[in-house]
Structures are given as C-alpha cells and as structure tokens.
C-alpha cells in the first residue's frame, strides 16, 4: 500500500467543510471503503478522515466560500477545537496504512473502532490512544474494557511516544477475575 492517491486520474472527490465535518455529495466510493457516516443523501467525514484523504490525494476540501483547504490548513483548523487532533490523525493514518478499517469515535480520549479481515471472519477492536507521559487509572482501564466487551470488541491501547511512534498493546483481563 502506498500513500499515492488511488484516484489520482479520476475526478477528485470534493467535500465542503461545515461545523467540524466535511460533507461529501458523491461519497459512495468512500463509503464503500469505510469512510464517513451516511446522513440521508450525503456522506459526513470527520476531520481526521478528511485530513487523511487530503494527504492521500483522494479528496479536495473546500470551505463554504469555495476556497480549497490544504492539508496544513485543515490540520491547523481542526486543532483549534481539538488539541489532540494530531495524535488522532497519527494513529488513524497508521491504522489505515496497515490496511485496517478504522472509524473515529467522538470521545474525549482519541479512540477508533477497527476491523481486520481474517479470511472469512473479522476481528473487531476498540483502539484507544494513550500518550506517553499521561497516566491511566485502573478504574478507567476497567471502564474501557467494559465498553469494549459490550461492543464485542477487543481492547487495544495505541501508545504514542514523544516522537509520535506508535506501539499497539492488547489489554485483557485474565485469570477469570
């Protein structure tokens, strides 16, 4: 897999930035590839998805007055409301780059619903980002585990270090307790 746009020679898909979302009119293909959320006739992309797609050259995002936003401009705008935007984007891009389907969750801690195809079946994960230097209490870990279990997913911590390197660790309760 490369970061080269897969749609480089097709007409660029266009989206409009509206209230922290990017609205795409003709989003069928993106939807099929696991991007965005369908809302009636349009596809709503989160800013993380939009930034990733701009970077891949698969999407052009324009503001409501029609001006095209560069990758940098979108990232800068998104960070105003969400200081952890870059970390979200890092982990999201890494998951996608590994060939996994990832959907951003709207949550205080950056998190993603991730699916991995394994032959006929599918592995389902809840991926939570933890940044080096920020600690997590056992109570929180238990809450995440419960949440993952209720969604029938395995809990994964994406640990992001000071340079932006990511390691993934599966978290599970063992010994039947």
């Amino acid at each position, binding site marked *: 897999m490369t970061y080269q746009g897969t749609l480089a020679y097709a007409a660029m898909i266009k989206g409009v930035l509206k209230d922290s979302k990017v609205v795409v009119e003709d989003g069928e293909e993106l939807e099929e590839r696991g991007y965005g959320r369908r809302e009636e006739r349009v596809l709503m992309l989160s800013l993380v998805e939009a930034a990733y797609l701009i970077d891949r050259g698969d999407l052009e995002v324009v503001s409501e007055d029609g001006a095209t936003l560069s990758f940098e401009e979108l990232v800068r705008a998104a960070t105003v409301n969400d200081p952890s935007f870059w970390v979200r984007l890092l982990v999201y891009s890494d998951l996608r780059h590994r060939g996994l389907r990832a959907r951003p969750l709207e949550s205080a801690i950056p998190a993603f619903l991730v699916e991995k195809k394994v032959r006929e079946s599918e592995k389902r994960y809840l991926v939570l980002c933890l940044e080096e230097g920020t*600690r997590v209490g056992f109570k929180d870990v238990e809450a995440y585990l419960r949440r993952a279990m209720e969604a029938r997913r395995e809990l994964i911590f994406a640990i992001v270090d000071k340079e932006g390197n990511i390691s993934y660790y599966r978290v599970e309760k063992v010994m039947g*307790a």
Partner: protein
Amino acid sequence: MSGGKLRALLLGRRVVVFDRPRARDLYFNEGFYGKFFMVSKPKTPNVERELELSLLEALYLAEKGKLEVVDGEGRPVDVEELRRMGREAYENFDEVYAVYKDLRDRGLIVKSGMKFGATFVVYRLGPGLEHAPFLVHVLPYDSRLDPLEIVRAGRLSHSVRKRFIIAYVDPLGRVSYLQFRWMM
C-alpha cells in the same frame, strides 16, 4: 507431617524453620514454601537446611493454621502481629498479600519474582518443574499506569518468555489481573 504444628522462629523480620525434615516437607510436599539457607535452586528433595519463609508465606500458613511463629523468647507471634510487621516492612503489604493469597488459594505456587523484575513468579507445578511460569506484578489500585509501564511489561514478558500480568486490588477487595500483549 508429624509432631504437631510446624514451628518457625521470628528473627527480626525474617521467619525461619529450623526443623530440617519439616522444612523439607514444607518445601517439597506442601507447595514450595520458603527458601533453604544457602541453597538457591534445590533440584532433589534431599536438602538438609533451614528454611526461610517470607512474611507473606508465614502469614498465609499461620492463617491456615499450619504454622506457629514464635519469637526469641518462645512467645507465640499471632497473625495480627505478623500482618502488622508486614505492613511495616513492606510497602503496599495488604494488596500484595491479597494477591498472594488469591493465587495460593487457587492452588498455584507463588514465589518471589524479584529476579524477573516482578512481584511474583507463579507456577502451576513448581519451580524447576515447568518452563512456562508467569509473572505477576502488584500495583496499588490508585497508582495510575504510565503507558511506559505497559510497554515495559510487554517487552519484559517477551524477553523472559513469560506472561506478565499486572494485578491490583480494587476498593471492594477484589483482585484483578490485567495482561498486556504486544500486537504490532
């Protein structure tokens, strides 16, 4: 076992069984309790040495009514006194003991994991009898995990080829075990 309750002597904060046949029995037949004086890894059950018990082991055996600890004057040291001493000698003693007891009550063999960088190393059969013991590291419930510790746990388990489990005791006294496995 013969001759009534097993007796151990309290020396400062260390507990030692001087009766060598009973010491041997406690180690080899009762679940690998203690460590023989000057013998690090006994291979065959013919050791003729004193057996030192940890305060955790002494308390556990005393609670089970299998051990009587006496001080230098021959006065019995009861379980509450052992517990008090444990709290003085060992930070976080109550939580560490709760985990120790939980694992022992499951029939597992629980030994010091110091050499592996964990609180306990846990065997199903016993030291020297199996290659896949696991490590249990006890952390206070309110300690808040540093992501670095999660990575360290994962790396350590890989390098010593042992499952590494973090244990904690919640405010209701329930013992929980978390495992972190490197994925990618």
